[in-house]
C-alpha cells in the first residue's frame, strides 16, 4: 500500500537560517542594485537577496547547479519567486558578488527586481498541451530576449511591468490581469469528427461547454453528433477541451492576441483586467517578430508617457484608451469592442472623449 496524503514538506525545514531567525520581524528593505534586495530586521539582522531569471522549463541539471550555489553561499537553501525566479538569500553582504558571479556562470541573468520587467508567467504551449494555439516557451524566449535590458536593470520603467503568456483561452497563467498579456487564439470554427463523436464525447457536456450556445444536436436524428452555428462561434476552443472530436487548431488560423493594462496589486488603483488591443497576429516561429515588436513599442510608449510609479493600466485609464491607440499607432478594429456578456459596461456612455 502506497503512502498517501503526507502533503508537501514542512516549509520550516526549508527556511534559510537568517530567515528562520527573523521570521515575521522584518522592518524595511532597500533595493541595493538590480536583482539585489536588502531586508533589515528588527533584530538588526540583514538579509541580502540575489534574484535571477530562469527559463522555467529546465533540466534537473540546472536545478542542481542552483543547489550548488545555495550550498556554497546560502547554508544550502534557496527559493523561487511567484514568477519563477530563483532567489539566493544570505546574511553576508560579501556573498553578493560571488553569488552574482556564480549565477552568471551558469548562464542566468541577475535582475527582475524593482521598476522593470520580471520573468514572464507562462504555460505549456506546443511543449506539452493539446490545446495550444501558440507555443509558450518559444514565444517567451523571443520576448524576453527583447526585454532583457529591462530585466537586468539596464533600462527602467515608470513602475513594475508584468508580461504573461497563455497558449489558449483557458489562460492557465490567469493572465487576464497583467500589464501585457500574450494569448494564443484560434480563429477558425472547430471541425467535427461525427464518426468518433459518441465514442469520444458526451453530447450534453459538449453542448453545455459553449459560451455562446453555438453547439446544437445534429438535426439528423440518425447522426449522434452535434453541429456548430458558425455565426455564433468565436473559436474559444472550450468544446475541444471537453470533446476531442472537435479539433480547432489550424495552422493558418492560429496566432496570438495582445491584451494590455491589467494589474493585480491593490496599490493606488484597484486591480484591473487586461484589455484586448490586438486581436490577432499570425504565429511566426521561431521568433514571432511581429509580437515582439508590438510589445516593444507599447513598452517604449509607456516608458516615455507614464507618470512615475504609474502602472500601464493606470496610465492608460488616466489618458484614455483613445489616446493609447493614437500614441501606439495600433489600429482600432471591431474586435476591440466588446460584444460578450458584460459588453454594455464598456460602451462610452458620455460625450467625454479625446479626439
Amino acid at each position, binding site marked *: 500500500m502506497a503512502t498517501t496524503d503526507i502533503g508537501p514538506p514542512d*516549509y520550516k525545514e*526549508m527556511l534559510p537560517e537568517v*530567515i528562520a531567525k527573523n521570521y515575521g520581524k522584518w522592518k524595511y528593505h532597500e533595493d541595493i542594485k538590480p536583482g539585489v534586495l536588502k531586508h533589515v530586521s528588527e533584530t538588526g539582522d540583514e538579509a541580502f*537577496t540575489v534574484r535571477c531569471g530562469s527559463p522555467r522549463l529546465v*533540466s534537473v541539471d540546472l*536545478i542542481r547547479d542552483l543547489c550548488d550555489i545555495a550550498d556554497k553561499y546560502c547554508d544550502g537553501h534557496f527559493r523561487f519567486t511567484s514568477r519563477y525566479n530563483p532567489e539566493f538569500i544570505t546574511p553576508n553582504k560579501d556573498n553578493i558578488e560571488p553569488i552574482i558571479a556564480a549565477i552568471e556562470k551558469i548562464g542566468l541573468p541577475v535582475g527582475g527586481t524593482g521598476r522593470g520587467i520580471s520573468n514572464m508567467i507562462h504555460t505549456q504551449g506546443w511543449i506539452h498541451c493539446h490545446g495550444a494555439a501558440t507555443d509558450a516557451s518559444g514565444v517567451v524566449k523571443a520576448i524576453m530576449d527583447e526585454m532583457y535590458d529591462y530585466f537586468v536593470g539596464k533600462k527602467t520603467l515608470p513602475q513594475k511591468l508584468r508580461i504573461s503568456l497563455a497558449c489558449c483561452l483557458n489562460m492557465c497563467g490567469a493572465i487576464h490581469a497583467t500589464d501585457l498579456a500574450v494569448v494564443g487564439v484560434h480563429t477558425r470554427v472547430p471541425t467535427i469528427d461525427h464518426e468518433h463523436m459518441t465514442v469520444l464525447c458526451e453530447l450534453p457536456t459538449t453542448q453545455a461547454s459553449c459560451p455562446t450556445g453555438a453547439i446544437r444536436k445534429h438535426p439528423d436524428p440518425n447522426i449522434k453528433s452535434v453541429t456548430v452555428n458558425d455565426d455564433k462561434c468565436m473559436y474559444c476552443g472550450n468544446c475541444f477541451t471537453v470533446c476531442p472530436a472537435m479539433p480547432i487548431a489550424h495552422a493558418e488560423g492560429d496566432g496570438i492576441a495582445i491584451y494590455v493594462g491589467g494589474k493585480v496589486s491593490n496599490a493606488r488603483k484597484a486591480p484591473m483586467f487586461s484589455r484586448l488591443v490586438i486581436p490577432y497576429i499570425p504565429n511566426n516561429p521561431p521568433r514571432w517578430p511581429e509580437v515582439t515588436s508590438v510589445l516593444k513599442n507599447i513598452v517604449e510608449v509607456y516608458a516615455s508617457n507614464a507618470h512615475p510609479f504609474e502602472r500601464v493600466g493606470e496610465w492608460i485609464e488616466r489618458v484614455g484608451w483613445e489616446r493609447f491607440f493614437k500614441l501606439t499607432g495600433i489600429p482600432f478594429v471591431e474586435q476591440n469592442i466588446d460584444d460578450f456578456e458584460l459588453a454594455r459596461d464598456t460602451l462610452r456612455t458620455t460625450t467625454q472623449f479625446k479626439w
Partner: protein
Amino acid sequence: MDDKTPMMDELEKGPWPSYVKELKKAAKKSDAAKDLIKVQERSFEEKMTMWKHGGIVGVAGYGGGVIGRYISRPEEFPNVQAFHTLRINHPSGWFYKTDRLRELLDVWEKHGSGLCNFHGSTGDIIFLGTTSEHLQPIHDEITAIGWDLGGSGSDLRTPTGCVGPARCEYACIDTLDFIYNITMEFQNELHRPPFPYKTKIKASGCPNDCVAAIARADFSIIGTWHDNLRIDQDGVKEYLDSGFDVQGLVVNKCPTNALEMVNGKLELAWPEDCVRCMHCINMMSKAIRPGVDKGATILVGAKAPVIHGACLSSVIIPFMKMEPPYTEFKELWLKAMDWWDENGRTRERISELIDRVGMRMFLRAIDVEPVPQMVYRPRANPYVFFDKGV
C-alpha cells in the same frame, strides 16, 4: 525526416536563458527529451501542437496530480508516445533545502525525462514527461522521501502563498503557515477530486498581492489591518532629507487623499479614509508600516475566462483574524464548498454559481451578512428579490 532543428537552434541564441539549451541538456540522458526537441521543431514548422487529449492516468488512491498526455504521431516520435506530467506540491513560499530537493530530482531523473517546470503557474513543481508505468513508482518514491503530489482535476488545487513573513516587512498574516496548514488539513480534497470543478486558494500577506491571489484563486486571502498605518517621523525626515518628493510621489498619489504633510511631518490626516492600498508604505518602507491589528480580507471568485469571462475575486469578509488553527477560515471554506458542491453544475466554478443564483444565496449559505464593502456600488437595476418578504 531529418534530425536538423534549425528553429530550435535559433532559440539557443540571445541573452535570455534558453529553454532549448535545457532540452538539449536533458536530451543527453533521455530519449524522450530528445524526441521532445523534434516535436517542438515540428510544431514550429507546422504551426500546430503535436499533442492529443490525455487519457485517464494516475496513481493509486488519488484522483489528481497527474496530467495524461499522448503524441498524435507515435511513429514519428516514439519516445514521447506517452508523456505525462506529475505535479509535486511545493513547500510553502517555494523555499527549498538543497539536500531535500536533490533527492527529489534524483527520483525524477530516474523515472522521467529529467525536464521540469520550476514552477507550474499554479505553483507546483512540474515533472514534465514520463510514461504510465513510471507514475506509481515515482509517487511511491517521492512519498518515501517526504514529498507528495499536488492537485489536478476537480479538486482543491495546490494552495500557494507569497514569501510573506519569511522575508517581507509588509506581511499582515503568516502566509506560509496558513498555506501549509490548510494544505495539510485538506489533503483529501486535494487528492480526491470531490467538487464540480477545480477550486483554488492563494494567500498574499498584504494588498500588494504578490501571488496574484485576487486574479487567480477562487478563495483569495489577502493580509490587511483594521487600525491605522504607523508613521515614523524620523523615517519621514530621512526621506525628505534625501530629496525624495514625499508630497508629489506619496501624498498626491494616495487614492483617497488620506495623507497630509503638516509642518514637515507626514500625517495620516484622515485615517478613516485610508483604504490600505499600500502605496505610501511601498514608497517609504522605512517610515510607514501597516497597523498592528492585523488580519485578512477574504475575497471569492477569481478564475480564467472559461465560460463567462475571467473574474477577479470580490470581498466576502472584509476582515478576519488569521491565527492557527485558522478555524474560522476553514469553517467558512467548508460551508462554501458544501454549497457549491450541492448547487454547482459540472465545470461551474464558484463565481459562476454565484453569478447564476445570486450573491444573496451564497451569503445565506455561508451565514454572512451583506455589507457595503462587498460591492463597489449597489445595483442600478430594479430587479430585486424579496423571497424573505418585505
